[in-house]
C-alpha cells in the first residue's frame, strides 16, 4: 500500500538568458523548440506545472524615489528573464530535477529555482515587531 502525501509546494522556474538560441543550426532549433513545448505539455499533463509564459524581450525598469523609467532590461543578456513556469511539486528536490530537464540548458540557458513564499518575509518581520510591541505593552 502506498500513501501519497498530498502536500505540495510551489516553485517558480525563471528561465534566464534570451539569446542562447542565436547560432543554433535549424536542426538544433527545431529539436529545442519541440522538446520545450513537449516538456511544458507533459508537466501540465502531470499536474506539476500549472502555468507558464514567455516574456517580451524588452520592457521598462523603474527605480528610485523619482520613479525614473528606463528601457530595459537589455535585450541581449544572459541574465534577462525570458519566461517562467509555475510548479506545484512535492519539494525543492523535485523542482530542481524538473529544472534540469530544461531543453535550453545545453545551449547556455540558465534556470533559477525559487520557492513561492506563503507570506512575504518583510511582512513577517513587520508582524514580529508589532507582536513584540504588544508583548512589551502588556508586560
Amino acid at each position, binding site marked *: 500500500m502506498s500513501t501519497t502525501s498530498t502536500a505540495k509546494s510551489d516553485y517558480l522556474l525563471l528561465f534566464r538568458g534570451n539569446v542562447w538560441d542565436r547560432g543554433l543550426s535549424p536542426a538544433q532549433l527545431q529539436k529545442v523548440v519541440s522538446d520545450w513545448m513537449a516538456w511544458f505539455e507533459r508537466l501540465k499533463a502531470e499536474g506539476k506545472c500549472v502555468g507558464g509564459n514567455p516574456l517580451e524581450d524588452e520592457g521598462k525598469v523603474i527605480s528610485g524615489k523619482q520613479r525614473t523609467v528606463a528601457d530595459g532590461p537589455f535585450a541581449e543578456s544572459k541574465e534577462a528573464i525570458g519566461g517562467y513556469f509555475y510548479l506545484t511539486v512535492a519539494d*525543492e528536490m523535485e523542482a530542481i530535477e524538473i529544472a534540469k530537464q530544461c531543453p535550453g540548458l545545453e545551449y547556455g540557458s540558465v534556470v533559477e529555482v525559487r520557492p513561492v513564499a506563503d507570506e512575504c518575509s518583510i511582512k513577517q518581520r513587520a508582524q514580529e515587531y508589532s507582536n513584540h510591541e504588544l508583548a512589551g505593552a502588556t508586560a
Partner: protein
Amino acid sequence: MNTETTTGEYMLLFRGPHWDRGLTPDQLQQAMDKVMAWFEGLNEGGKIKSAQPLGTQGRIISGTNGRFVLDGPFAESKEAVGGYLVLRAANLNEAVEIARSMPTLSYGVSVEVRPILAECPIFQRHPDLVQRARERAIQAEQLWVAAAA
C-alpha cells in the same frame, strides 16, 4: 516590439528583497501598511491576475542536463527578484504607471515591467519550426497519455 501577441498581461518583477534593512520598526510598519493597501487597491480593481512573494533560498541550474546546481541569487543583491505580480493593463504605459506607484520604490526596490507574450520570441524568430514542433509535441503527449493509461 511586436504587440500583437501580447496578452493584456504584464509581469512586474520586484528586485531588491532586503529593502527593509535600516528601517525602524515604526517605519517598517508604515511601509507595510502602504504596500498592503497598494495590493488591495489593485486587487479590488481587478488588475491582479496573480502575485506572490518568493522565498530567499534559491538555486541556479546550468550546464548540460543541469549538472551545475548552485545557491543563488543572494537575497542581499539588489538584482534578486523578491516577488512578482501579473498585472492586467491596457498597454505598457498603464502597466508602467501602476508600477511607478509601488511604495517600496521609495526604499530602493526596482520594478521591472515586461509584457507577457502568448508565444515565445524564440518561436517567433522561427515560425516555420513551430508548426512541426507543435505536431511533435502533440505526438509526444499522445504517447505519454497512452503510456500512463
